[in-house]
C-alpha cells in the first residue's frame, strides 16, 4: 500500500496541536459566514416544503400521491430504499475500514457517519408516511395490545422494522461514542461559558484517563465489529422485501448481494458529492486529500461493477428461466412505457463509472463531483425501475396499470433533501466534522514511522 510517491493522508507539517486547532476552529473561531447562512436558508426552505407536503398528506391521506393498484409502492418505497442505501457508506467507512486498518478513513469517518444518520432519518420517514396512518406506527412493534396480536415474524416487512431501527440506533451510538472525546476538546477550547457548559454536558465529563481510554477503545472496536455484519444485513433485509414476493422482476436470489453493493455504491457517491464542496468551503484540503477522493472513487468503481454484474445476471436469468412473464418483464423494462428510466440507469450506473478506470479522472475533484451526482441519479432511477416497472405489468394484462408521480410525490422527495441538508449544515456548524483524537493519533503515528 505505502508506495513512496503516493499522496499522503494528511498534508505534511502538522502536529497534534495544529490538527486540533484547525478542526475546532472551523466551529469555534470561524465567523458565521454568508455562504453557510445562504446554504442553511435554502435547506431550511426545502425542509418547510417537506413539512407542507407531509401536513397535506396527513390531512388528505396517501391518495394525494400517484400510487394506485397495481403500483401500490410508488415514490415512498423508492425514496426509502435510496436513502437507506446512501446511509450504508458511513458505517462501511467507519466500521469495515477500521477493522481493515485503512488509516485514510480517519479524516472522513465522522462526516460519513453523520451523513449516514441523516440519510437514515430521511429513509425512516417514507415507510412511516406510506403506512397511511403514521400515528399507529407502533402496530409494527411487538407490544402487549388488547387484541392479543403479534407481528407476523415470517414477513420481511417486519424484519425490516427491526433491521432499520437497529441500524439507526447503532449508527447513532457509534457516532456519539466517537464524538465524546472530541466534545471534551471542544469544551476545553471554547471560551464563552455557555458553550463550555453545553459541550461539557455533551462530553459527559470525559477527562482522557488511561483506564477510560482502554475501555473506550475496546468498546469502539466491538461496536465496529458489530456494525460490520449489521450494515450488510440491513440492505439484505430491504432486498428481501422485494425478493420474497413472487412478482416478476423482484423474485430473485441475486437481490441481497446486489442490493448491498448498490447501497455502498450510492453511499460513496453521496460521500463524494458532499465532501468535494465541503473540503473546499472549509479549507480542509490538507486533511481530506486527493488520496481520499481517489480511494472513494475506487470503491465506487468496484461496487459499480458489482451492480453491473447484478443487472447482467438478472437479464441472463430471465432469458435462461424461459419463463414468459420474466422475459416480458425484462423486455418491458427496456422498451416499455418506462424505457427512458431504464436506459438512464444503465447510462449512469454502468457506463459513467467506467471513467473511473483512469487515474486522471479519479484525482480530478470537479469531474468526480459530476460523476458522483450522476451515480446518485442513476441509483435513484434503479430503485424506481425495480419498484414501478415490476408492479405495473405483472401476470394478468387485465390488471395492468400505469403509475405517474404527482406533485406531492416530488415535493416529498425534494423536501427530504431539505431535512438531510439542514441537519448536515447544523452538524458542520456545531460539531467537529473530523475526528480530533483520531487525527492527533494518526499524525503522531506518521511522525514516529518517519523517524524509524
Amino acid at each position: 500500500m505505502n508506495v513512496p510517491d503516493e499522496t499522503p493522508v494528511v498534508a505534511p507539517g502538522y502536529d497534534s496541536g495544529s490538527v486540533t486547532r484547525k478542526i475546532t476552529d472551523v466551529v469555534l473561531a470561524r465567523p458565521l459566514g454568508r455562504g453557510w447562512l445562504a446554504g442553511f436558508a435554502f435547506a431550511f426552505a426545502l425542509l418547510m416544503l417537506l413539512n407542507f407536503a407531509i401536513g397535506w398528506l396527513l390531512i388528505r391521506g396517501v391518495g394525494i400521491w400517484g400510487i394506485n393498484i397495481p403500483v401500490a409502492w410508488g415514490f415512498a418505497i423508492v425514496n426509502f430504499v435510496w436513502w437507506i442505501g446512501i446511509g450504508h457508506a458511513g458505517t462501511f467507512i467507519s466500521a469495515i475500514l477500521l477493522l481493515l486498518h485503512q488509516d485514510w478513513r480517519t479524516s472522513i469517518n465522522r462526516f460519513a457517519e453523520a451523513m449516514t444518520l441523516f440519510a437514515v432519518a430521511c429513509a425512516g420517514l417514507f415507510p412511516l408516511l406510506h403506512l397511511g396512518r403514521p400515528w399507529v406506527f407502533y402496530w409494527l412493534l411487538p407490544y402487549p395490545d388488547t387484541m392479543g396480536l403479534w407481528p407476523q415474524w415470517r414477513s420481511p416487512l417486519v424484519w425490516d422494522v427491526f433491521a432499520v431501527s437497529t441500524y439507526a440506533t447503532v449508527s447513532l451510538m457509534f457516532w456519539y461514542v466517537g464524538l465524546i472525546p472530541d466534545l471534551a476538546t471542544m469544551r476545553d477550547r471554547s471560551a464563552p461559558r455557555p458553550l463550555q457548559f453545553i459541550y461539557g454536558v455533551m462530553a459527559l465529563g470525559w477527562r482522557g484517563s488511561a483506564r477510560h481510554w482502554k475501555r473506550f477503545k475496546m468498546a469502539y472496536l466491538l461496536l465496529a465489529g458489530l456494525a460490520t455484519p449489521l450494515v450488510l444485513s440491513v440492505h439484505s433485509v430491504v432486498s428481501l422485501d422485494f425478493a420474497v414476493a413472487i412478482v416478476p422482476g423482484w423474485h430473485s436470489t441475486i437481490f441481497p448481494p446486489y442490493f448491498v453493493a448498490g447501497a455502498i455504491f450510492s453511499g460513496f457517491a453521496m460521500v463524494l458529492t458532499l465532501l468535494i464542496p465541503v473540503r473546499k468551503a472549509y479549507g480542509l484540503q490538507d486533511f481530506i486529500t486527493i488520496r481520499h477522493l481517489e480511494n472513494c472513487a475506487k470503491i465506487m468503481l468496484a461496487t459499480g461493477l458489482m451492480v453491473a454484474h447484478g443487472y447482467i445476471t438478472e437479464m441472463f436469468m430471465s432469458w435462461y428461466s424461459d419463463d414468459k412473464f420474466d422475459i416480458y418483464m425484462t423486455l418491458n423494462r427496456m422498451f416499455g412505457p418506462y424505457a427512458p428510466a431504464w436506459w438512464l440507469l444503465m447510462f449512469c450506473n454502468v457506463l459513467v463509472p467506467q471513467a473511473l478506470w483512469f487515474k486522471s479522472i479519479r484525482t480530478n475533484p470537479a469531474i468526480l463531483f459530476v460523476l458522483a451526482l450522476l451515480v446518485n441519479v442513476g441509483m435513484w432511477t434503479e430503485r424506481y425501475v425495480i419498484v414501478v416497472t415490476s408492479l405495473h405489468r405483472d401476470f394478468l394484462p387485465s390488471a395492468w396499470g400505469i403509475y405517474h408521480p404527482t406533485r406531492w410525490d416530488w415535493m416529498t422527495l425534494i423536501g427530504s433533501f431539505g431535512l438531510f441538508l439542514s441537519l448536515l449544515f447544523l452538524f458542520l456548524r456545531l460539531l467537529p466534522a473530523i475526528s480530533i483524537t483520531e487525527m492527533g493519533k494518526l499524525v503522531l503515528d506518521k511522525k514516529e514511522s518517519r523517524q524509524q
Partner: protein
Amino acid sequence: MNQNLYGMMAEFEQTEELLNAARAAFKAGYRKMDAYSPFPVEGVAEVLGFEHTRVPLVVLIGGITGAAMAYGMQYYSAVWDYPLNIGGRPLHSWPSFIPITFELMVLFAAVAAVFGMLLMNGLPKPYHPVFNVPAFKLASQTRFFLCLQATDPQFGEGTKHFLTSLNPIAIHEVES
C-alpha cells in the same frame, strides 16, 4: 501537608515521557494514580496496572441476551400464544426467525458496549478534582498528565521531589 489535596500532577509534552513516568511511578510503589491524554497512548493503562477490561464480557452477555429474547419471543408468540397456519408451514419455522434474532443480538450487544463502557468509566461525571487545574484544559488537546493521588500510602513529602525527577514541564497540585 495540604489536607484538601486530591493529588499531585505532572505535565508532559511527549507520549514516551508519560509512559516512562508512569513506569517509574509504578516502580516507586505508587498504585493510586492515573494518566490523562488527548488520545489513547498505547500501553499506558497496562503500565498503571490496568490489564484487563470487562467490556468484551458485557458485550457478550448483551448479545446472548438479545438473541435469546428475540428468538424466545418469536417462538412463544408463533407456537404458543397465537399459532397461525401460513401456507402449511410449521409453526416453529425457525429460518424466518433468524433475521430478527440477529438484529436484536446486535442491538443489545451494542447498547451493552456503549452503556457498559460509560458506566464502568463512571461517566457521566461532570465534576472531577483534576478539572481544578487550569492547565488540565490541555489534556484534551496536546499535553499528557500523570496524577498521583493523595490517598496512596506512598504519597507524602517526597512525592513532589519524585515528580521533579521525571523532568515534567510543570507540576500542579490538584485541589479536591
